[in-house]
Structure formats: C-alpha cells, structure tokens
C-alpha cells in the first residue's frame, strides 16, 4: 500500500482565493475611493452576486429550478418594513429576523411545492410568489398595493448622518455577499456538498448510492429562502421605499438572476460571480437603449446557451481545469 492524502486546494484555487481576498479588502475600503453613485452600484452588484449564488445552489446543485425566488426577496423586505415600522425593531436587527421569518415560511411552502414534479414545480414556485404579492397588496398596515416608505425616524436610527448611513448599508451588503459565498464554499466542502454535487450530476446515481436526496433538497430550499430574504431586506432598506410590485418583481429578482447564473455557469460557484460582472457591464453600457436592452440580454443568453451550455465559467473550467475556490478532493499518492 502507499501513503496518500486528499487535498482541496490547487494552484488555481490559491490564485483565485488570493484575488477574492484582495478584492474583498479593496471593496471594504471603497468608501474612501468610490463616490456615492458607485457605492450604490457596488451594493447592487453584491446583492446580485448573493442572489444568483443562492439561486445557483438551489437550481444548479439541488436541481430545484425555482422561478419564484422573488417570493423570499419580497417577504424579507416586507418583514423588515413591518418590524421596523409597526414593531419598532431596529432596521439592522430586522435583517436576520427577516431571514428567520422566511425560513419558517419556507418550511410548509417546500412541503407543498415539493409534491410537484418537473415543470409543475417551477410553475408552483411562481404561483407562491404571486400569492405573496397579493397578500402584501392586502396589507393595509403597510399601505397595501400602493406601497410605503420608511419614516425618517427609522432611517435616522441606522446612523445619524446620511454619509454614515450609506457607508453602513454598503458594508453590510459587502458582508452579506462575503458570508453567502463563504457559506456556500463551506457547504460544498462538507459532507453535504459532496451529496449536493452528486445530486447536481446524477440524481438517480446519488439515490442509488445512499444519498437522501429529498431531505437535502428540503434543507437547501429552506436555507436559500433564509439567505434570499436577508438580501431582499437589505436591498429595500437601501431603497427606503417598498411596494408589492417592486418587492415581488419576477423580472428584477428572478429573471435577471437566472440570466446571470446561466451565462456565468450554472452548477459552479464561480458562475454567478462572472455572470453578475457581465450583466452589469451590459446594463451600464446599454441602459440608454430602453427596451432594446432587454432584447440584447435575451440574445446574449440564447447565444451563450447554444455555444457554451455550461456558461462562460463552465467553458473555462472544462478547458483549463481552473477552480477559484478550493473545492476539489484530489487524491495524492506518495509512493514509498
């Protein structure tokens, strides 16, 4: 017999992780080098990386193709507004509470929609989101369909100066995306990651090798709802204004997120990051074109799906075997 060890990191992941850490430090210092508009743009980018990474976990790994994640973005946002405006909870403390509330709601919702198979599951997720939107529109305490704004007292409680408020929200957005990415890397390196990756590749094979697919999917759905709601809560805390149509927008919180994940590379942790960068590059350069901009997004999505079905990162990873995060389990045999 020979000695062996199992190693997670490779030279590409060492470079990748270094770049990610340096980027994090640079972004943490952004209040000193970026102006107000750029800080807002960066927080939006962070929110999309987080949302897309969570959707990728759900659809790319667990095979749960939800088109209704706006349900949890909106739910998280409404819980934050409700807690802050009606219960006097500090808005920052309301962010984790929004996540917990969404996870609790997700438990029975998952039990319900997991009875649906294939396309019906996707339709079911969308129906759930529509129901949530209609319920929000009926909530007269938060001005129902017309929506509402956070009162000045709540806004000031974040920080007294406008600048400090913006910095605070920016840093929380950065922390959120860092935590989401870190949690996903940690998850994928754990025993559950092994199971999730197996499910991604072959559900029949996974079940036949003893992986409890149904339980893992259930846990992932609830965990993703938890994360998505916290991201949603922060997005609308920054916007200050909420309405059912913006909070439960299928366009903003699901269609763009799917676009990002698919062009970046579904079923790979790097995919949503690359996808978000491309999405924002397109959006910043084409924003003036109005409706044509959406058309171009559609064309890009179709082109990528045809030419690189595994997304851009899939193309790169297949060709060069790169990984940004140390996820693989490489068997190294030391011959004695």
């Amino acid at each position, binding site marked *: 017999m020979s000695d062996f060890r199992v190693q997670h990191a490779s030279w590409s992941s060492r470079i990748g992780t270094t770049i990610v850490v340096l980027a994090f430090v640079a972004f943490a210092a952004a209040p000193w080098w970026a102006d107000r508009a750029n800080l807002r743009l960066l927080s939006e980018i962070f929110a999309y990386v987080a949302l897309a990474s969570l959707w990728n976990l759900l659809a790319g790994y667990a095979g749960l193709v939800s088109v209704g994640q706006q349900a949890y973005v909106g739910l998280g946002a409404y819980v934050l507004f409700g807690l802050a405006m009606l219960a006097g909870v500090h808005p920052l403390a309301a962010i984790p509470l929004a996540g917990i509330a969404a996870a609790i709601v997700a438990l029975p919702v998952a039990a319900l929609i997991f009875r649906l198979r294939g396309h019906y599951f996707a339709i079911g997720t969308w129906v759930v989101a529509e129901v949530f939107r209609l319920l929000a529109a009926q909530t007269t305490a938060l001005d129902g369909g017309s929506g509402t704004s956070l009162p000045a007292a709540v806004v000031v409680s974040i920080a007294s100066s406008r600048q400090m408020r913006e910095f605070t929200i920016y840093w929380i957005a950065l922390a959120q995306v860092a935590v989401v990415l870190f949690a996903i890397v940690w998850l994928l390196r754990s*025993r559950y990651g092994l199971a999730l990756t197996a499910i991604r*590749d072959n559900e029949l094979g996974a079940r036949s090798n003893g992986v409890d697919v149904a339980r893992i999917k259930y846990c992932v759905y609830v965990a993703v709802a938890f994360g998505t709601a916290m991201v949603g809560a922060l997005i609308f805390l920054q916007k200050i204004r909420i309405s059912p149509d913006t909070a439960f927008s299928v366009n903003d919180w699901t269609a763009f997120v799917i676009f990002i994940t698919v062009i970046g590379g579904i079923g790979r942790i790097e995919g949503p990051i690359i996808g978000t960068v491309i999405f924002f590059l397109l959006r910043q350069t084409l924003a003036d074109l109005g409706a044509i901009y959406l058309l171009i997004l559609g064309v890009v999505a179709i082109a990528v799906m045809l030419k690189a079905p595994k997304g851009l990162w899939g193309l790169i990873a297949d060709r060069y075997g790169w990984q940004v995060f140390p996820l*693989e389990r490489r068997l190294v045999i030391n011959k004695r």
Partner: protein
Amino acid sequence: MAGLDPAIHVLLRMQGVRRGCRHKAGHDRVLEPMSAILTLEKISKRFGAIVVADDIDLTLLRGEALGIIGPNGAGKTTLFGIVTGTVPPDGGRVVFKGHDITRMKPEHRCRMGLARSFQIPQPFDGMTVFENLVVAAAFGGGRSERDVYAGCAGLLERCGLADKANRRAGSLTLLDRKRLELARALATGPRVLLLDEVAGGLVEHETAALVDLINDVRATGVTIVWIEHVVHALIAVVDRLVVLHGGALIAEGEPAEVLRRPQVNEIYMGIEERRMGADA
C-alpha cells in the same frame, strides 16, 4: 486466490464472515445452513402491453451467487430496478433481511446494504473518480467522509482505476465508467451486490481479473446477483442460474445443468447471435 486489500475489507463490512471459504468449488449447499437474505414474492410489472415481470418468486440465500441470463428485453434490468426501488412493481413484495422494503426509497435500501451497478453507468460526471467513490462510501456506508478515504483509495486500485483517480468521471471511456460503476457499488459496503452486465466489452484477461474481483468480494460474505450475457464469465462465479424470458423465470438450477436444457439452449443461442452485433 489472492485476498482483498485490507482497506476493501473495511468497506465490505465483513463482520463475522469467514474469508476464502465461499468459493464455488467444493461448496455444498446442503451442509451449509443458509437463510434467505432477499425474497421476491409474486412480483409483477408491465410497461403498457409488455409484461416485464410475471409473478416472479425468487429467494436469494445469504452468501450465494446467483446468475441471471435471458434475452434482451426479458426484464432483467427492470427486476433490479424493482429490488433497488427505482422501479415500482405493480404487485408483489420485496423482502430484504426480514423487512418488507417494497415501498422503501432507493437511498434507504442502499444504506441497508443493497448495492447495484447500472447497466447504463450513472456516474457523477462533474466529480472526479475518487470523489464518486467517496460519495458512495460516505452515504451508502453511512460513514464520515474522512473515514472512507483509505478504503476508496484501495478500491480504486483494485478496480483498475488508480491512475484515473483525479480524472473527471465524465471524461472516462465507457469501459472505465463500467469499472467505476462496480467500484461505487462496492464502496457502499453492500450485503447484497447486484451487477448488471459488467463484463461486456472486456478482453479476456480483463474478464479474468473481473471474475477474480467478484469472487474475492463474494469470499467476504457478500451475496451476489449478476446479470450477464458473457456466460463463461458468469458461470465462473455463480452457483445457481436463473433464466428470465418474457418476465417469467423459465429455468432455475445448477448453472451447467440449466445451460444444457434444450429450452434454455434455444434462447441462449438467440442471445449469442444478437450479442455479436450489439457489443463492440
């Protein structure tokens, strides 16, 4: 006969099993008190108008090796699906280790010790060969990830995949995928191992190595059911043979004797002819 690597013994959960005493030669079924480990009772299944299981009754004894032959479309693979839970039967019961598992999920059956290699390999394409085995050993064997590394490394070597440990399973040739399929089934630490056409496409010395491997596994007390068209490999392992035809068991008994029956011979000739063209 050479023993298995110690690491594989761990994976095969060989508690209380004597080694090297279960080989075909000199094996006497009457003297060994054997109990049933797996029983099929009146299993029936049809796909539309095709009957693939016609009231099948079959009892598998602890430690035995059973071969299944039959023409294409006879329902052999479907029978494995019914046993492992991927195909629901229309009627009948599956009893494993004294428990009625007819409605149990495949993953739970696997953890009880029922492992299967698929005729059409079902690897985790995006994961490495080693990672494929770790999944099977950690989940099928119900053990922690670190505890299975050594056993998986040993299994890779035994199944001829050591030099491809870090290759993605999706990049393997069909032959290596079949090897991986067998290695994964073994990694789960089965009590009953169901093999579906693992010898097709192998050259002679590879077939001999496969027969050795399966005999070694069997020597650790694992019960084996093997569906195989390569009959000479099959009879080098099994001590009982059944013939499935149109969803019905039309013959059962000592392999050589079963193969001599005119009725079986007729079907078997048919298989050989069709196989000539099918396997490349």
